C-alpha cells in the first residue's frame, strides 16, 4: 500500500494535488503575515495559487518529472524498462506513458470527451435560445455556457485533437520509432485534462463560471467574479501543452525523418503539422501573456488595462488577437494535411501541385501574422491600420484558394472511393469554401462594421471550425481508425453520421448568417421577438445535430470493442504508416524504412514511397534505455543518409 503512494501513479498524483493546496495555504499565510495583512488567510489568494500549484503537484505525483528530477539531482537515472511503452489494458492509458501511439490515443479520447461536454453546453444554449425571454438559465449561466463552450472546443478539442492524431500518425509517417522527446510528449498530454477540468470546475466558483467569452476581453475579465481565473490559469496549462508538443513536432520532423525522406517527399500531413507547429511556437506565448496580464490586474492590483492608471484597454485585444488569429490557422492547417492525405488516397491520384500545396501552407503561416487587427475593425483602434489589414486578410484567401483548387484538380479524373472519410473530406471542401467566402466578406471593412459582434460571426466561425476543422477531424478519425485500433469501423453508420451531420449542420448554421445581418447580436440570452421563428427552428435542428454526434460515439466505441480486424493497409495507401501492422508494433518499425519516392504516386506504375529494408533496429531486450534505442536509430539514420 505504501508503495502505491510513493511510486508514480494516480495515488501519488492525488496527494500531490492536495499537497499543492497545502503549500498554497502556507505561502499565502507566510506572505500575509510578513506584510501584516489581516486576515492571515485570504481564500481567493489561496485558490488562485492552488490553481497553479496543485496541477503541478498532480503532474509530479503522476510521475511526469521523475526521470528529469533524478537526472537533475545527479542521482543515477533509472533506465526506462519500456513497461511504460505500449498499452496492454485500459489502465495503461492513465499513466505517464512515453509511447507516441498511446499518447496519441490519450489525446484523441480526452479531447473527444471535452467535445461532447462542449457540445452539451451548446445544446443547453440552444434550449435557452429557443424562445425569446428567459426560460432555462439565467444571464450569468448563459454567458458562462457560451464562454466555456468556446474555450473547451478551441483549447481542449480542436487544437489538441489535431495534436493527438498527428502524435499517433506523424512519427509513423516519417519512419521514426517515436517522437523526439517522449517524456516531454507525455507531460504535454497530461497538462491537457488539467486545463479542461479547471475550466469545467469554474462552474463551482462563487459567482459562477467565467462568463466573458473565450476572448475574455479586459476590463470585463478583470472585474468579473472569481470563476474568471479558472480560464486565465487553465489557458496557461493548455498553452504550455500546445507549445511543448509543437516543439516536439518540429524537432521530430527536422531530425527524425527516415533516410531518403527529403522535405519534398514528406506527406502533406507532415508539412501541415510542421507549419502549424511554427505558428504555435511563435504565437501561443502571446495568449499566455495576455492572460497573465489579466491575472496580474485582477489578483495583484496591476493596471495594465486600467485607463485611469495609465493602462490601455485596446492593448489586450492586440496581444490577444496576435495569438488568436494565427490560432485559427492552428485549428485549420492540420486539417488541410488530413484532407490532402485522404483525397489523394481515395481518388487514387497524386496530389495536384504538391509543391504549391507545401508552399501555400508556409505562405499562410507568414500571412497569418499580418491580419490580426481585422478582429478589431470596430474596436476604436487607430483608423489607418484597417485598410492594410483588410488587404492582407483578403490576400490570405489566395494560398487557401490554391489549396482548394488543387484538391479539386486531385479529384478530377480520379477513381473516387466514396466511403466515410472521403465523404467528410468532400463535405469539408464545400463547407470550408463557404466559411472562406464569409471570411472574405469579413475582411471588407464596411460590411464588417455592420456585422461584427452579430450572429453572422457565429455562423462564419462555425462554418470554419465545424464545417472546416471538425469535418477534417471526423475524416481523419475514420481514416486512421483501423491503424489506431486495429479494427474497422461500421461503414453504414459512418455514412449515416456524415449525412446527418452535413444536413443538420447546414440547417443550424446557415440561417445564422441571415439573422446576424438582420441585426441579432451574438452572446445574448434574450433577443427581439422578430427572430423568434428562426431561433426556434435553429434550436430544433441543432438538437438533431447533437444526436448525430451520438452516432459517431456509438460507432467508435462499438467498433473499437468488436469491429472486424483491420488489415495493415485497408486503403491501399502509400505513406509509411500503412506499411506496418494495424495497430503498429510497439516500436513501430522492425527496420527503419527507406524512402525512395514521393508519398502520393498513385497510378504511377511500380512506384513506391518507402520500403522496409533499412538498418535493423536493435529491439530492446527487457531493460534497455529508450534513449539508447533512439540513439541507435538516429545513428543508423546518419549512416543511411550519408
Amino acid at each position, binding site marked *: 500500500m505504501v508503495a502505491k503512494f510513493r511510486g508514480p501513479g494516480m495515488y501519488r498524483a492525488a496527494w500531490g494535488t492536495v499537497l499543492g493546496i497545502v503549500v498554497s495555504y502556507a505561502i499565502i499565510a507566510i506572505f500575509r503575515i510578513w506584510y501584516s495583512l489581516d486576515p492571515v488567510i485570504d481564500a481567493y489568494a489561496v485558490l488562485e495559487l492552488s490553481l497553479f500549484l496543485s496541477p503541478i503537484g498532480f503532474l509530479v505525483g503522476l510521475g511526469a518529472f521523475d526521470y528529469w528530477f533524478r537526472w537533475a539531482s545527479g542521482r543515477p537515472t533509472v533506465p526506462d524498462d519500456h513497461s511504460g511503452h505500449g498499452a496492454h489494458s485500459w489502465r495503461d492509458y492513465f499513466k505517464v506513458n512515453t509511447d507516441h501511439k498511446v499518447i496519441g490515443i490519450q489525446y484523441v479520447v480526452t479531447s473527444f470527451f471535452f467535445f461532447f461536454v462542449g457540445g452539451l453546453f451548446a445544446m443547453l444554449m440552444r434550449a435557452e435560445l429557443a424562445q425569446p425571454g*428567459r426560460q432555462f438559465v439565467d444571464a450569468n449561466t448563459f454567458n458562462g455556457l457560451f464562454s466555456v463552450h468556446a474555450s473547451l472546443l478551441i483549447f481542449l478539442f480542436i487544437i489538441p485533437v489535431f495534436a493527438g492524431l498527428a502524435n499517433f500518425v506523424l512519427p509513423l509517417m516519417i519512419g521514426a520509432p517515436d517522437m523526439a522527446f517522449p517524456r516531454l510528449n507525455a507531460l504535454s498530454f497530461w497538462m491537457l485534462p488539467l486545463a479542461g477540468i479547471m475550466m469545467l470546475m469554474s462552474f463551482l466558483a462563487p459567482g459562477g463560471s467565467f462568463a466573458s467569452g473565450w476572448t475574455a476581453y479586459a476590463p470585463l475579465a478583470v472585474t468579473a467574479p472569481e470563476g474568471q481565473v479558472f480560464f486565465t490559469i487553465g489557458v496557461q496549462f493548455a498553452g504550455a501543452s500546445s507549445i511543448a508538443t509543437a516543439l516536439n513536432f518540429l524537432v521530430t520532423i527536422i531530425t527524425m525523418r527516415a533516410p531518403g525522406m527529403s522535405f519534398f517527399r514528406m506527406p502533406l500531413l507532415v508539412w501541415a503539422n510542421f507549419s502549424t507547429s511554427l505558428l504555435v511556437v511563435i504565437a501561443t506565448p502571446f495568449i499566455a501573456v495576455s492572460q497573465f496580464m489579466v491575472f496580474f490586474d485582477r489578483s495583484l492590483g496591476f493596471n495594465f488595462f486600467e485607463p485611469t492608471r495609465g493602462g490601455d484597454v485596446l492593448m489586450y485585444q492586440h496581444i490577444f488577437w496576435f495569438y488568436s488569429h494565427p490560432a485559427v490557422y492552428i485549428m485549420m492547417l492540420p486539417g488541410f494535411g488530413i484532407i490532402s492525405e485522404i483525397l489523394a488516397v481515395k481518388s487514387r491520384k497524386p496530389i495536384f501541385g504538391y509543391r*504549391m500545396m507545401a508552399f501555400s501552407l508556409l505562405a499562410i503561416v507568414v500571412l497569418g501574422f499580418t491580419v490580426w487587427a481585422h478582429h478589431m475593425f470596430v474596436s476604436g483602434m487607430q483608423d489607418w491600420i484597417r485598410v492594410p489589414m483588410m488587404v492582407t486578410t483578403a*490576400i490570405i484567401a489566395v494560398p487557401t484558394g490554391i489549396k482548394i483548387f488543387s484538391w*479539386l484538380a486531385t479529384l478530377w479524373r480520379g477513381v473516387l472511393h466514396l466511403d466515410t472519410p472521403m465523404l467528410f473530406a468532400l463535405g469539408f471542401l464545400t463547407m470550408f469554401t463557404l466559411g472562406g467566402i464569409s471570411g472574405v466578406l469579413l475582411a471588407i471593412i464596411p460590411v464588417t462594421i455592420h456585422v461584427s459582434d452579430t450572429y453572422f460571426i457565429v455562423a462564419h466561425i462555425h462554418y470554419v471550425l465545424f464545417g472546416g476543422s471538425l469535418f477534417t477531424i471526423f475524416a481523419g478519425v475514420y481514416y486512421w481508425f483501423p491503424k489506431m485500433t486495429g479494427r474497422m469501423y461500421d461503414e453504414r453508420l459512418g455514412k449515416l453520421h456524415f449525412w446527418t451531420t452535413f444536413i443538420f449542420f447546414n440547417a443550424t448554421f446557415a440561417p445564422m448568417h441571415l439573422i446576424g445581418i438582420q441585426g441579432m447580436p451574438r452572446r445574448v440570452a434574450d433577443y427581439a421577438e422578430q427572430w423568434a421563428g428562426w431561433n426556434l427552428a435553429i434550436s430544433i435542428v441543432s438538437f438533431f445535430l447533437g444526436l448525430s454526434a451520438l452516432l459517431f460515439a456509438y460507432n467508435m466505441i462499438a467498433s473499437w470493442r468488436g469491429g472486424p480486424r483491420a488489415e495493415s493497409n485497408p486503403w491501399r495507401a502509400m505513406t509509411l504508416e500503412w506499411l506496418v501492422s494495424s495497430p503498429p508494433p510497439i516500436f513501430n518499425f522492425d527496420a527503419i524504412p527507406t524512402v525512395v519516392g514521393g508519398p502520393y504516386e498513385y497510378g504511377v506504375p511500380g512506384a513506391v514511397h518507402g520500403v522496409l529494408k533499412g538498418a535493423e533496429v536493435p529491439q530492446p531486450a527487457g531493460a534497455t534505455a529508450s534513449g539508447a534505442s533512439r540513439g541507435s536509430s538516429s545513428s543508423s539514420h546518419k549512416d543511411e543518409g550519408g
Partner: protein
Amino acid sequence: MSEDSRRNDKIPVVQMLVVGFIASALGIAAGLAIEWFPTAASTQAGPIDHLYDVLIWTSVPVFVLVTTIVMFSVVKFRMRPGEENLDGPPIHGNTRLEVVWTAIPAVVLVVLCSYAWIVLNDIEEAQAGEMRVNVTGQQFAWTFEYPQAGGGAPIKSTQLYLPKDRPVRFFVKAIDVLHDFWVPAFRMKIDAVPGLETKYRVTPNRLGTYPVVCAELCGLGHSVMRATTRVVTPADFDKWIAEQKAPAEAAAGSGAGAEVDGKTLFTDGNGAATACGACHTLADAGTTSETGPDLDKALAGKDAAYVEAGITAPDEEIAPGFQGGIMPKNYGDTLSAEELKALVTYLGEVAGK
C-alpha cells in the same frame, strides 16, 4: 468497366459550364432577393448594402464552381464495381493552371478591396453642419447627451432623438467596461472603450423608431442593454429639445409642473429613464418581462423607503434568484424628484400592500 473505357469517357465540360452558369444565376438571384439587411435609415446604409450585393455577385460563382466540380466528380469519377484496384491517371500538376488560379483570385480580391476602400471613405466622410451627440455606455444603459449652443447645460436622455437629414457625429465613451454602440438601421457601430473617445458619423434619412443595441459583451445585462432611436422631423426635434429643457426650468420655478403619472412612467419611461416595465413584471401595469424580479412579489408588504431604495440603489438588496449589477444605477439622475415620488407612490399602491 476497365481503365480504357474510363479513359474514353467524355468529360462533360460543356454540361458542367451550363449547370454552373444556371446555378450561379439562381444563386445570385436568390442572394439579391433575400432581405438581408434591416430597414435602412441613414445615408451610410446605401453604399454598404450595395457593396454587399457586389459581394454576392462575386461569392456565389466561387461557391458554385467548387460545388459543381465536387458533384460532377462524385457522379462521373466515382469508383464503379470492378474498379476496386484501379488507379487514376498520375497527373502531378500543371504550372499554367496553378498560375491562373493564383493570379485571378488575387486580382479579384484587390479589386474588391479597392472598392471597399472607396465605400469606407464615402461612409466616413465629414459632413457640413454636423450635430454632436455624446454617447456614454455603462452597465447596462445608454446615455445620450446633446451639448447646447451658448454653453447651456447639455440635455441628457436615455433615448436617442435625431432630426432627419442632419449629419450627426457620435462621440462614444464607456464608464466601466467595453460596450458597442450600434444602430442596425444606420449600419454603423463602434466600441465604447474605457479611457478612449471613439467616433462615427451618420446622416439619418428615414423617419421612424429603431433599436439601439449594445453589440459588445458587457456582462450580465448585455442582452437587455437596449435603447431606442427616434428619427423625427427637424421641427419635432426642436420641440423635443425644448421639452427636455422645460422640466429643469419648471422644477427650478414653481415646483408644481405637470402632473406626473407613475403608471405611465412605469410602462413608458420618461425619455431619459428606461421604462421599468421593460424588465419587470407588474400586474397592474400589464407588463410581463422576466429580466428583473416580479415586482408584485418582490415589493409585497414593503414600505416607500424600500421601494425608493430599490430604484435609486438597486444593488443594495437583491431579490432571491437574481443577480446584482444588471439594473442601471442611474435612475436617481434620470428621474426628477417628482417622477421618483410618483413612481414610488404608484408602486406602493399597486404592489407594496
